[in-house]
């Protein structure tokens, strides 16, 4: 039987991965779209050739690994180029995800974790969406602690360039508040029960 497909998203630093890990510990298969995208950019022959064609051979090192700093320079502050890159990567991730779901027939539901679930419109094929929410200050503090190469101003810039959290909340079927005040695990368990009941 095809499992129910649940999306999980949230802005940078909201704690999507932490929440996904809690679901995973309950036995729910989790597809990390961002990690898979990075992986596909170095393993998917079609995608590699498309990226090289669009951004040049310098996009990859001689050992086949992705030249992240080169790509970053190309797309940073250039929304059009970023759109082109996303236009190449998202369809390949979509196909990879579809194959992955087919292999999870024994699960009642699966989780697709993606930062740009709404922005890339990939939430439309999913049955329900969980939004992980946290106050901006908490998110900034987390990211600065995690990514030490980023300054607070840069993180706030990234947040401003993402879809506002309010818009994500409006599209949510479930919300998990990860503000370091409210406990996450009981919220996850409650949603887990609700999704199991849907299956």
């Amino acid at each position, binding site marked *: 039987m095809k499992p129910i497909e649940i999306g999980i998203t949230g802005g940078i630093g909201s704690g999507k991965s932490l929440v996904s890990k809690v679901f995973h510990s309950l036995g729910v298969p989790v597809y990390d779209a961002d990690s898979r995208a990075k992986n596909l950019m170095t393993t998917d022959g079609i995608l590699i050739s498309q990226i090289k064609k669009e951004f040049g051979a310098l996009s990859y090192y001689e050992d086949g690994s992705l030249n992240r700093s080169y790509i970053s320079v190309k797309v940073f502050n250039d929304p059009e180029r970023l759109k082109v890159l996303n236009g190449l990567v998202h369809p390949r991730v979509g196909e990879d995800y579809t194959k992955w779901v087919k292999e999870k027939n024994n699960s009642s539901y699966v989780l697709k974790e993606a930062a740009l679930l709404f922005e890339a419109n990939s939430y439309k094929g999913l049955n329900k969406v969980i*939004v992980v*929410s946290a106050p901006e200050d908490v998110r900034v503090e987390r990211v600065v602690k995690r990514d030490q190469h980023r300054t607070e101003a840069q993180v706030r810039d990234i947040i401003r360039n993402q879809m506002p*959290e*309010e*818009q994500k*909340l*409006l*599209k*949510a*079927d*479930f*919300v998990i*508040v990860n503000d370091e005040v409210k406990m996450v695990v009981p919220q996850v368990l409650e949603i887990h029960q609700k999704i199991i009941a849907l299956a």
Partner: protein
Amino acid sequence: MLCFFAATVFWFFNALNKSYTTNISFPLHFDYNPENYVPVTALPKEVRINVSGIGWNLFRRSSGIKIPPLTIPLERPSELKKIVGSALPGFFSNQLEGLEINFVITDTLYINMQPKAGRWLRLSIDSVQQNLDRNFTLSSDVKVVPESVFVEGPMSIVTKLDEPTKLKINDQNIDANYRQDLKIDLAQGDLIKCNPSYVFVTFGVEKLVSVSDSIKLEILNAPAKSHLGMNLSKIPCTMGVPESLSKDFDPNRVKAVIDLKGFKRGNVKLLPQVMGLPEHSRVLKIDSVRIRY
């Protein structure tokens, strides 16, 4: 007595300074562009929230006096069907000064909004004959002024309105020339704005003169070599003819027609169709004819 009153006041103000937890219904306001979107069903009016705060703040809010509504911004409301209750604290946390949201009791707010659409709609009047006194008939065409109005409302409704849309006159037993304003009453009209909202309807009526006579009966498409089991060449008929035409009316120009096309052989009773009547005349009485073939 004075001591008791003073103690009560002291106790009341002291109690208002303590912290409590309670459920309060807050009015809601949805912030959207009304130029581009329109609600198809009424938007939720309030949301029930479990809050904590000092007694004075809770008292002020729960008393309902001058509570500013909680605002939910809707940028593209037509893409939304619902907002889950657990998403709401994210919108309200900055709007509830002095109160802390524990949880939202309202499970889901259902939203049904559509892009607003507008178009010109042609109007006509549904059959007027049924609104006239039985002794009267039309003596002119029915005029609607203006013939078209501009309608605005939810896209799915506005685009499906019939062209022309037929309006109904509510007046009955009309026996005089008609000149009335008619309110445009469309299906799901509470969601649609018409400009103008009234049209002016005019038509003339005239008294009918009853003429009873025998008129020629004609059978069409009778099967060859069939015997119709009847021997009628004329049947009685009572006709209503406008008074102005009655002097020149000749019943011999009128005929009753029965078309047997499509009927199986047997014993059938059919109502003849009267043809050749002057404009705005009508049949007041005619008997059906039994045919066996």
